[in-house]
Protein backbone atom coordinates (compact mmCIF):
# COMPACT_ATOMS: atom_id res chain seq x y z
CA UNK A 1 0.00 0.00 0.00
CA UNK A 2 1.43 3.36 -0.94
CA UNK A 3 1.80 6.01 1.75
CA UNK A 4 -0.69 8.29 0.05
CA UNK A 5 -3.62 5.93 -0.49
CA UNK A 6 -5.53 4.70 2.53
CA UNK A 7 -9.03 3.67 1.49
CA UNK A 8 -12.05 4.92 3.39
CA UNK A 9 -13.34 1.44 4.45
CA UNK A 10 -9.94 0.71 5.96
CA UNK A 11 -9.92 4.02 7.83
CA UNK A 12 -13.42 3.29 9.12
CA UNK A 13 -12.32 -0.12 10.43
CA UNK A 14 -9.25 1.39 12.06
CA UNK A 15 -11.40 4.05 13.74
CA UNK A 16 -13.84 1.45 15.04
CA UNK A 17 -11.07 -0.82 16.27
CA UNK A 18 -9.43 2.15 17.98
CA UNK A 19 -12.56 2.77 20.04
CA UNK A 20 -12.97 -0.92 20.89
CA UNK A 21 -9.32 -1.26 21.91
CA UNK A 22 -9.53 1.75 24.24
CA UNK A 23 -12.70 0.45 25.94
CA UNK A 24 -11.34 -3.06 26.36
CA UNK A 25 -8.07 -1.71 27.66
CA UNK A 26 -9.63 0.56 30.27
CA UNK A 27 -12.46 -1.75 31.30
CA UNK A 28 -10.81 -5.15 31.37
CA UNK A 29 -7.14 -5.42 30.57
CA UNK A 30 -5.93 -2.67 32.94
CA UNK A 31 -7.63 -4.35 35.88
CA UNK A 32 -5.67 -7.57 35.51
CA UNK A 33 -2.04 -7.03 36.52
CA UNK A 34 0.64 -9.42 35.20
CA UNK A 35 4.02 -9.44 37.01
CA UNK A 36 2.82 -6.31 38.81
CA UNK A 37 2.26 -4.32 35.61
CA UNK A 38 -0.63 -3.92 33.18
CA UNK A 39 -0.71 -5.10 29.59
CA UNK A 40 -1.14 -2.05 27.38
CA UNK A 41 -2.84 -2.91 24.10
CA UNK A 42 -2.85 0.64 22.74
CA UNK A 43 0.79 0.93 21.56
CA UNK A 44 0.61 -2.63 20.18
CA UNK A 45 -2.49 -1.74 18.16
CA UNK A 46 -0.94 1.44 16.81
CA UNK A 47 2.34 -0.24 15.88
CA UNK A 48 0.55 -3.10 14.11
CA UNK A 49 -1.76 -0.78 12.17
CA UNK A 50 1.35 0.99 10.92
CA UNK A 51 3.03 -2.32 10.10
CA UNK A 52 -0.01 -3.54 8.15
CA UNK A 53 -1.30 -0.36 6.54
CA UNK A 54 1.58 2.08 6.24
CA UNK A 55 2.82 5.26 7.83
CA UNK A 56 -0.23 7.46 7.18
CA UNK A 57 -2.68 4.97 8.66
CA UNK A 58 -0.27 4.31 11.50
CA UNK A 59 0.08 7.99 12.35
CA UNK A 60 -3.67 8.60 12.12
CA UNK A 61 -4.51 5.61 14.30
CA UNK A 62 -1.83 6.67 16.78
CA UNK A 63 -3.27 10.17 17.03
CA UNK A 64 -6.84 8.85 17.39
CA UNK A 65 -6.06 6.21 20.00
CA UNK A 66 -3.84 8.61 21.92
CA UNK A 67 -6.50 11.31 21.98
CA UNK A 68 -9.18 8.83 23.07
CA UNK A 69 -7.00 7.58 25.92
CA UNK A 70 -6.20 11.11 27.08
CA UNK A 71 -9.87 12.11 26.96
CA UNK A 72 -11.16 8.96 28.63
CA UNK A 73 -8.68 9.01 31.51
CA UNK A 74 -8.43 12.79 32.02
CA UNK A 75 -4.72 12.69 31.26
CA UNK A 76 -2.81 15.68 29.90
CA UNK A 77 -4.21 16.11 26.38
CA UNK A 78 -1.67 15.71 23.65
CA UNK A 79 0.90 13.57 25.46
CA UNK A 80 -0.38 10.14 24.43
CA UNK A 81 -1.43 11.26 20.96
CA UNK A 82 2.05 12.73 20.37
CA UNK A 83 3.80 9.52 21.40
CA UNK A 84 1.43 7.17 19.58
CA UNK A 85 1.52 9.24 16.38
CA UNK A 86 5.27 8.74 16.23
CA UNK A 87 5.00 5.01 17.02
CA UNK A 88 2.39 4.45 14.31
CA UNK A 89 4.30 6.49 11.75
CA UNK A 90 7.64 4.80 12.30
CA UNK A 91 6.23 1.29 12.23
CA UNK A 92 4.55 2.25 8.96
CA UNK A 93 7.85 3.54 7.62
CA UNK A 94 9.46 0.27 8.60
CA UNK A 95 6.93 -1.54 6.44
CA UNK A 96 7.32 0.85 3.51
CA UNK A 97 11.10 0.87 3.57
CA UNK A 98 11.92 -2.73 4.52
CA UNK A 99 8.65 -4.71 4.41
CA UNK A 100 9.89 -7.26 6.96
CA UNK A 101 8.35 -10.70 6.53
CA UNK A 102 10.09 -12.62 9.30
CA UNK A 103 7.93 -14.53 11.76
CA UNK A 104 9.40 -12.58 14.69
CA UNK A 105 8.54 -9.20 13.17
CA UNK A 106 5.24 -8.70 15.07
CA UNK A 107 6.90 -9.59 18.38
CA UNK A 108 9.85 -7.26 17.81
CA UNK A 109 7.71 -4.41 16.51
CA UNK A 110 5.25 -4.86 19.39
CA UNK A 111 8.03 -4.84 21.97
CA UNK A 112 9.60 -1.83 20.28
CA UNK A 113 6.29 0.04 20.27
CA UNK A 114 5.68 -0.75 23.95
CA UNK A 115 9.19 0.34 24.89
CA UNK A 116 8.83 3.56 22.90
CA UNK A 117 5.51 4.28 24.62
CA UNK A 118 6.79 3.67 28.15
CA UNK A 119 10.06 5.54 27.69
CA UNK A 120 8.27 8.28 25.77
CA UNK A 121 5.73 8.74 28.59
CA UNK A 122 8.51 8.93 31.14
CA UNK A 123 10.45 11.54 29.16
CA UNK A 124 7.34 13.63 28.54
CA UNK A 125 6.35 13.53 32.21
CA UNK A 126 9.84 14.57 33.29
CA UNK A 127 9.75 17.43 30.80
CA UNK A 128 6.31 18.49 32.08
CA UNK A 129 7.78 18.82 35.55
CA UNK A 130 6.56 15.72 37.38
CA UNK A 131 8.79 15.33 40.40
CA UNK A 132 9.74 11.68 40.20
CA UNK A 133 13.08 9.96 40.63
CA UNK A 134 14.55 7.70 37.97
CA UNK A 135 14.53 4.75 40.30
CA UNK A 136 15.21 1.06 39.82
CA UNK A 137 11.53 0.48 40.46
CA UNK A 138 10.58 2.73 37.54
CA UNK A 139 13.03 0.90 35.28
CA UNK A 140 11.66 -2.42 36.52
CA UNK A 141 8.13 -1.31 35.69
CA UNK A 142 9.24 -0.30 32.19
CA UNK A 143 11.09 -3.60 31.65
CA UNK A 144 8.17 -5.77 32.73
CA UNK A 145 5.75 -3.57 30.83
CA UNK A 146 7.69 -4.25 27.63
CA UNK A 147 7.96 -7.94 28.50
CA UNK A 148 4.23 -8.52 29.04
CA UNK A 149 3.39 -6.54 25.91
CA UNK A 150 5.85 -8.65 23.92
CA UNK A 151 4.19 -11.82 25.26
CA UNK A 152 0.76 -10.77 23.98
CA UNK A 153 2.10 -9.13 20.79
CA UNK A 154 1.66 -12.14 18.50
CA UNK A 155 -1.99 -12.94 19.36
CA UNK A 156 -2.84 -9.22 19.15
CA UNK A 157 -1.14 -9.07 15.74
CA UNK A 158 -3.14 -12.05 14.48
CA UNK A 159 -6.38 -10.48 15.70
CA UNK A 160 -5.72 -7.06 14.19
CA UNK A 161 -4.59 -8.51 10.88
CA UNK A 162 -7.74 -10.60 10.71
CA UNK A 163 -9.91 -7.56 11.46
CA UNK A 164 -8.23 -5.34 8.87
CA UNK A 165 -7.45 -7.85 6.13
CA UNK A 166 -10.79 -7.61 4.34
CA UNK A 167 -10.48 -3.84 3.93
CA UNK A 168 -6.82 -3.67 2.98
CA UNK A 169 -6.16 -3.22 -0.75
CA UNK A 170 -4.06 -5.79 -2.55
CA UNK A 171 -0.33 -5.11 -2.20
CA UNK A 172 1.53 -5.36 -5.54
CA UNK A 173 4.73 -6.44 -3.79
CA UNK A 174 3.00 -9.38 -2.13
CA UNK A 175 1.29 -10.34 -5.39
CA UNK A 176 4.62 -10.38 -7.26
CA UNK A 177 6.11 -12.57 -4.56
CA UNK A 178 3.30 -15.12 -4.78
CA UNK A 179 3.38 -15.18 -8.59
CA UNK A 180 7.03 -16.15 -8.60
CA UNK A 181 6.18 -19.43 -6.91
CA UNK A 182 2.95 -20.30 -8.69
CA UNK A 183 3.48 -19.29 -12.31
CA UNK A 184 6.38 -18.85 -14.65
CA UNK A 185 9.82 -20.29 -14.82
CA UNK A 186 10.65 -20.73 -11.16
CA UNK A 187 8.29 -23.63 -10.68
CA UNK A 188 10.05 -27.00 -11.11
CA UNK A 189 6.88 -28.38 -12.67
CA UNK A 190 7.05 -25.85 -15.48
CA UNK A 191 10.59 -26.94 -16.29
CA UNK A 192 9.70 -30.63 -16.50
CA UNK A 193 9.98 -32.03 -19.98
Amino acid at each position, binding site marked *: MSPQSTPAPLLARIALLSVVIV*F*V*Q*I*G*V*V*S*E*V*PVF*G*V*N*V*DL*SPLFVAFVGLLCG*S*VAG*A*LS*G*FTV*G*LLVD*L*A*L*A*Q*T*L*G*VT*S*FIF*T*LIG*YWSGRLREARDPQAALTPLLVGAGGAAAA*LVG*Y*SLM*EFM*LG*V*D*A*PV*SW*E*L*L*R*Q*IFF*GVLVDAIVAVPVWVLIRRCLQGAMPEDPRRRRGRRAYTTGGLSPLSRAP
Partner: protein
Amino acid sequence: MLAFLVVLSVLLLTAYFGESSEGRLHGVQRDFLTIISPIQEGANKALKPVRDLFSWFGDTLHAKSQLAQSKKETERLRQELVSDQAEKRSYRQLLALYHVDQLSIDDYHPVTATVIGKSPNIWYATVWIDKGEAEGIHVNDPVINDEGLIGRVVQAASDAALVDLITDSSMGVSARVGTSTATGLVQPKVGDPNDLLLQYLPSDSQAQDGEYVVTSGTVEPPYDSLYPPGIPIGQVTSTNEESAYKSVNVRPTADLHDLDIVQVLTAAANSRASRLQSLAASFATGQSQNQGAGSSEQLASAQSNG
Protein backbone atom coordinates in the same frame (compact mmCIF):
# COMPACT_ATOMS: atom_id res chain seq x y z
CA MET B 1 0.65 14.26 7.61
CA LEU B 2 3.11 13.38 10.38
CA ALA B 3 4.14 16.98 10.83
CA PHE B 4 0.49 18.08 11.00
CA LEU B 5 -0.41 15.48 13.64
CA VAL B 6 2.70 16.19 15.71
CA VAL B 7 2.06 19.93 15.64
CA LEU B 8 -1.60 19.35 16.56
CA SER B 9 -0.56 17.17 19.51
CA VAL B 10 1.93 19.76 20.73
CA LEU B 11 -0.67 22.53 20.42
CA LEU B 12 -3.19 20.48 22.41
CA LEU B 13 -0.58 19.76 25.04
CA THR B 14 0.44 23.39 25.33
CA ALA B 15 -3.15 24.63 25.51
CA TYR B 16 -4.18 21.98 28.06
CA PHE B 17 -1.15 22.47 30.25
CA GLY B 18 -1.55 26.22 30.24
CA GLU B 19 -5.23 26.46 31.12
CA SER B 20 -6.96 26.12 34.47
CA SER B 21 -9.09 23.14 35.49
CA GLU B 22 -12.16 25.14 34.39
CA GLY B 23 -10.79 25.69 30.90
CA ARG B 24 -12.31 24.65 27.63
CA LEU B 25 -10.25 21.52 27.05
CA HIS B 26 -10.91 20.31 30.59
CA GLY B 27 -14.58 20.89 29.89
CA VAL B 28 -14.32 18.77 26.76
CA GLN B 29 -12.83 15.98 28.87
CA ARG B 30 -15.70 16.21 31.34
CA ASP B 31 -18.27 16.10 28.52
CA PHE B 32 -16.48 13.12 26.98
CA LEU B 33 -16.66 11.33 30.31
CA THR B 34 -20.42 11.99 30.45
CA ILE B 35 -20.91 10.56 26.97
CA ILE B 36 -18.86 7.41 27.23
CA SER B 37 -19.39 6.44 30.85
CA PRO B 38 -22.63 4.49 30.14
CA ILE B 39 -20.84 2.62 27.34
CA GLN B 40 -17.86 1.89 29.56
CA GLU B 41 -20.14 0.70 32.34
CA GLY B 42 -21.96 -1.64 29.94
CA ALA B 43 -18.68 -2.95 28.53
CA ASN B 44 -17.36 -3.47 32.03
CA LYS B 45 -20.40 -5.48 33.08
CA ALA B 46 -20.28 -7.58 29.92
CA LEU B 47 -16.58 -8.33 30.28
CA LYS B 48 -16.55 -8.81 34.07
CA PRO B 49 -16.57 -12.63 33.85
CA VAL B 50 -13.39 -12.50 31.73
CA ARG B 51 -11.72 -10.16 34.18
CA ASP B 52 -12.79 -12.26 37.16
CA LEU B 53 -11.39 -15.38 35.51
CA PHE B 54 -7.95 -13.83 35.12
CA SER B 55 -8.09 -12.36 38.64
CA TRP B 56 -8.96 -15.81 40.01
CA PHE B 57 -5.69 -17.23 38.69
CA GLY B 58 -3.68 -14.45 40.28
CA ASP B 59 -5.54 -14.69 43.58
CA THR B 60 -5.07 -18.46 43.75
CA LEU B 61 -1.32 -18.14 43.19
CA HIS B 62 -0.95 -15.60 45.98
CA ALA B 63 -3.43 -17.14 48.42
CA LYS B 64 -0.94 -19.12 50.51
CA SER B 65 1.47 -16.25 51.15
CA GLN B 66 -1.40 -13.88 51.84
CA LEU B 67 -2.83 -16.31 54.41
CA ALA B 68 0.43 -16.45 56.34
CA GLN B 69 0.72 -12.67 56.23
CA SER B 70 -2.88 -12.21 57.38
CA LYS B 71 -2.40 -14.53 60.36
CA LYS B 72 0.63 -12.54 61.50
CA GLU B 73 -1.20 -9.26 61.05
CA THR B 74 -4.25 -10.54 62.98
CA GLU B 75 -2.12 -11.50 65.97
CA ARG B 76 -0.42 -8.12 66.02
CA LEU B 77 -3.73 -6.29 65.76
CA ARG B 78 -5.23 -8.39 68.55
CA GLN B 79 -2.47 -7.23 70.87
CA GLU B 80 -2.93 -3.62 69.83
CA LEU B 81 -6.68 -3.86 70.36
CA VAL B 82 -6.26 -4.76 74.00
CA SER B 83 -4.16 -1.69 74.74
CA ASP B 84 -6.34 0.57 72.59
CA GLN B 85 -9.53 -0.38 74.41
CA ALA B 86 -8.44 1.35 77.60
CA GLU B 87 -7.48 4.45 75.68
CA LYS B 88 -10.82 4.41 73.89
CA ARG B 89 -12.71 4.40 77.19
CA SER B 90 -10.97 7.61 78.25
CA TYR B 91 -11.60 9.11 74.81
CA ARG B 92 -15.35 8.44 75.05
CA GLN B 93 -15.48 10.03 78.48
CA LEU B 94 -13.73 13.10 77.12
CA LEU B 95 -16.10 13.35 74.16
CA ALA B 96 -19.10 13.04 76.47
CA LEU B 97 -17.65 15.78 78.68
CA TYR B 98 -17.56 18.17 75.72
CA HIS B 99 -20.86 16.88 74.28
CA VAL B 100 -19.25 15.84 71.03
CA ASP B 101 -21.18 13.24 69.03
CA GLN B 102 -19.24 10.13 68.11
CA LEU B 103 -18.62 10.59 64.41
CA SER B 104 -18.32 7.77 61.95
CA ILE B 105 -17.82 7.45 58.23
CA ASP B 106 -21.62 7.60 57.80
CA ASP B 107 -21.49 11.23 58.86
CA TYR B 108 -19.60 12.00 55.65
CA HIS B 109 -22.51 10.74 53.53
CA PRO B 110 -20.58 7.99 51.76
CA VAL B 111 -21.73 6.95 48.29
CA THR B 112 -20.86 3.40 47.29
CA ALA B 113 -19.57 2.97 43.74
CA THR B 114 -18.04 0.28 41.55
CA VAL B 115 -14.78 0.64 39.64
CA ILE B 116 -15.50 0.26 35.92
CA GLY B 117 -12.19 1.19 34.34
CA LYS B 118 -8.55 1.80 35.05
CA SER B 119 -5.59 3.49 33.43
CA PRO B 120 -2.81 1.17 32.21
CA ASN B 121 -0.16 3.85 32.64
CA ILE B 122 2.30 3.93 35.56
CA TRP B 123 2.33 7.74 35.37
CA TYR B 124 -1.43 8.19 35.67
CA ALA B 125 -2.97 6.04 38.41
CA THR B 126 -6.63 6.69 37.63
CA VAL B 127 -9.83 4.68 37.89
CA TRP B 128 -13.40 5.24 36.71
CA ILE B 129 -16.32 4.74 39.04
CA ASP B 130 -19.96 4.37 38.06
CA LYS B 131 -21.42 7.16 40.22
CA GLY B 132 -21.20 10.88 39.62
CA GLU B 133 -22.77 14.26 40.30
CA ALA B 134 -26.27 12.79 40.23
CA GLU B 135 -25.40 10.95 43.46
CA GLY B 136 -23.81 14.00 45.08
CA ILE B 137 -20.19 13.31 44.14
CA HIS B 138 -17.99 16.33 43.50
CA VAL B 139 -14.41 17.06 42.59
CA ASN B 140 -11.97 16.60 45.52
CA ASP B 141 -14.26 14.21 47.41
CA PRO B 142 -12.10 11.58 49.20
CA VAL B 143 -12.47 7.97 48.09
CA ILE B 144 -11.95 5.04 50.44
CA ASN B 145 -12.64 1.33 50.65
CA ASP B 146 -12.75 -1.08 53.58
CA GLU B 147 -8.94 -1.20 53.64
CA GLY B 148 -8.18 2.51 53.66
CA LEU B 149 -7.71 5.60 51.54
CA ILE B 150 -7.90 5.11 47.78
CA GLY B 151 -7.64 8.63 46.40
CA ARG B 152 -9.82 11.58 45.46
CA VAL B 153 -12.28 12.52 42.74
CA VAL B 154 -10.67 14.65 40.02
CA GLN B 155 -13.51 14.79 37.50
CA ALA B 156 -17.20 14.21 37.98
CA ALA B 157 -19.78 13.78 35.24
CA SER B 158 -23.44 13.16 35.90
CA ASP B 159 -23.17 9.34 36.09
CA ALA B 160 -19.47 8.65 36.42
CA ALA B 161 -16.36 10.06 37.99
CA LEU B 162 -12.61 9.80 37.64
CA VAL B 163 -10.57 9.10 40.73
CA ASP B 164 -6.84 9.76 41.11
CA LEU B 165 -5.35 7.03 43.25
CA ILE B 166 -2.92 7.85 46.05
CA THR B 167 -0.17 6.47 43.79
CA ASP B 168 -0.82 9.06 41.08
CA SER B 169 1.96 11.57 40.51
CA SER B 170 -0.38 14.49 41.28
CA MET B 171 -1.41 13.29 44.75
CA GLY B 172 -0.36 14.57 48.17
CA VAL B 173 -2.10 13.80 51.47
CA SER B 174 -1.32 15.31 54.88
CA ALA B 175 -0.82 12.45 57.29
CA ARG B 176 0.58 11.42 60.65
CA VAL B 177 2.07 8.24 62.02
CA GLY B 178 -0.05 6.37 64.56
CA THR B 179 -1.03 8.60 67.45
CA SER B 180 1.79 11.06 66.83
CA THR B 181 0.83 14.73 66.49
CA ALA B 182 3.54 15.48 63.94
CA THR B 183 2.16 15.69 60.42
CA GLY B 184 3.86 15.25 57.08
CA LEU B 185 2.94 14.86 53.44
CA VAL B 186 2.38 11.49 51.79
CA GLN B 187 3.32 11.46 48.13
CA PRO B 188 3.73 8.60 45.69
CA LYS B 189 6.98 7.22 44.41
CA VAL B 190 6.17 7.24 40.73
CA GLY B 191 6.75 3.87 39.11
CA ASP B 192 6.26 1.94 42.34
CA PRO B 193 2.58 1.41 43.14
CA ASN B 194 3.44 -0.38 46.39
CA ASP B 195 5.44 2.43 47.95
CA LEU B 196 4.51 5.89 49.22
CA LEU B 197 6.73 8.43 50.92
CA LEU B 198 5.68 10.36 54.04
CA GLN B 199 7.94 13.38 53.98
CA TYR B 200 8.66 16.53 56.02
CA LEU B 201 8.26 14.89 59.43
CA PRO B 202 10.22 16.59 62.21
CA SER B 203 13.55 14.89 62.74
CA ASP B 204 12.65 13.98 66.34
CA SER B 205 9.37 12.27 65.42
CA GLN B 206 9.09 8.55 66.12
CA ALA B 207 8.04 6.04 63.48
CA GLN B 208 8.37 2.30 63.87
CA ASP B 209 7.99 -0.37 61.20
CA GLY B 210 4.43 -1.64 61.05
CA GLU B 211 2.84 1.49 62.51
CA TYR B 212 -0.19 2.78 60.67
CA VAL B 213 -0.06 6.07 58.79
CA VAL B 214 -3.42 7.85 58.80
CA THR B 215 -4.82 11.06 57.36
CA SER B 216 -4.26 13.98 59.70
CA GLY B 217 -7.37 15.87 58.64
CA THR B 218 -5.77 19.16 59.65
CA VAL B 219 -8.18 22.07 59.91
CA GLU B 220 -6.28 25.25 59.15
CA PRO B 221 -8.27 27.66 56.98
CA PRO B 222 -7.93 28.28 54.13
CA TYR B 223 -5.78 25.14 53.76
CA ASP B 224 -8.11 22.55 55.30
CA SER B 225 -7.16 19.02 54.44
CA LEU B 226 -9.45 17.42 51.85
CA TYR B 227 -9.54 14.20 53.85
CA PRO B 228 -11.27 13.49 57.17
CA PRO B 229 -8.84 12.51 59.92
CA GLY B 230 -8.02 8.97 60.88
CA ILE B 231 -8.39 7.17 57.54
CA PRO B 232 -5.65 4.54 57.16
CA ILE B 233 -3.27 5.19 54.31
CA GLY B 234 -0.63 2.53 54.87
CA GLN B 235 1.97 1.01 57.15
CA VAL B 236 5.53 2.12 57.79
CA THR B 237 8.12 -0.10 56.10
CA SER B 238 11.30 1.90 56.70
CA THR B 239 12.54 5.34 57.75
CA ASN B 240 15.06 7.69 56.16
CA GLU B 241 16.93 10.42 57.95
CA GLU B 242 19.14 11.71 55.19
CA SER B 243 17.90 15.31 55.25
CA ALA B 244 16.82 17.80 57.90
CA TYR B 245 13.38 16.23 57.85
CA LYS B 246 12.58 12.60 58.47
CA SER B 247 10.84 10.66 55.73
CA VAL B 248 9.11 7.34 56.03
CA ASN B 249 8.35 4.69 53.40
CA VAL B 250 4.73 3.59 53.54
CA ARG B 251 3.08 0.54 52.00
CA PRO B 252 -0.55 1.32 51.11
CA THR B 253 -3.10 -0.69 53.11
CA ALA B 254 -5.53 -0.73 50.20
CA ASP B 255 -4.76 -3.15 47.36
CA LEU B 256 -4.78 -0.67 44.49
CA HIS B 257 -4.38 -3.43 41.87
CA ASP B 258 -7.67 -5.04 42.85
CA LEU B 259 -10.25 -2.32 43.35
CA ASP B 260 -13.89 -3.18 42.97
CA ILE B 261 -16.22 -1.47 45.47
CA VAL B 262 -15.27 1.95 46.85
CA GLN B 263 -16.96 4.69 48.87
CA VAL B 264 -16.88 8.39 48.08
CA LEU B 265 -17.17 10.70 51.10
CA THR B 266 -19.37 13.47 49.84
CA ALA B 267 -19.50 15.72 52.92
CA ALA B 268 -17.54 18.93 52.27
CA ALA B 269 -14.12 19.44 53.86
CA ASN B 270 -15.35 22.27 56.06
CA SER B 271 -18.58 20.59 57.08
CA ARG B 272 -19.64 20.22 60.69
CA ALA B 273 -18.81 16.54 60.51
CA SER B 274 -15.20 17.09 59.52
CA ARG B 275 -14.62 20.06 61.84
CA LEU B 276 -15.95 18.19 64.87
CA GLN B 277 -14.03 15.07 63.96
CA SER B 278 -10.78 17.04 63.66
CA LEU B 279 -11.26 18.77 66.99
CA ALA B 280 -12.22 15.53 68.68
CA ALA B 281 -9.16 13.83 67.21
CA SER B 282 -6.95 16.63 68.51
CA PHE B 283 -8.33 16.08 72.02
CA ALA B 284 -7.68 12.34 71.75
CA THR B 285 -4.05 12.84 70.79
CA GLY B 286 -3.53 15.41 73.53
CA GLN B 287 -2.78 18.10 70.97
CA SER B 288 -4.98 20.69 72.59
CA GLN B 289 -4.28 19.95 76.22
CA ASN B 290 -2.34 23.15 76.72
CA GLN B 291 -4.70 25.40 74.83
CA GLY B 292 -7.22 25.71 77.63
CA ALA B 293 -10.36 27.67 76.93
CA GLY B 294 -9.42 28.31 73.33
CA SER B 295 -10.14 24.74 72.28
CA SER B 296 -13.46 24.66 74.09
CA GLU B 297 -14.45 27.82 72.24
CA GLN B 298 -13.46 26.29 68.96
CA LEU B 299 -15.54 23.25 69.73
CA ALA B 300 -18.55 25.24 70.87
CA SER B 301 -18.27 27.40 67.79
CA ALA B 302 -18.11 24.37 65.52
CA GLN B 303 -21.17 22.84 67.18
CA SER B 304 -23.28 25.97 67.00
CA ASN B 305 -22.31 26.83 63.41
CA GLY B 306 -23.44 23.36 62.29
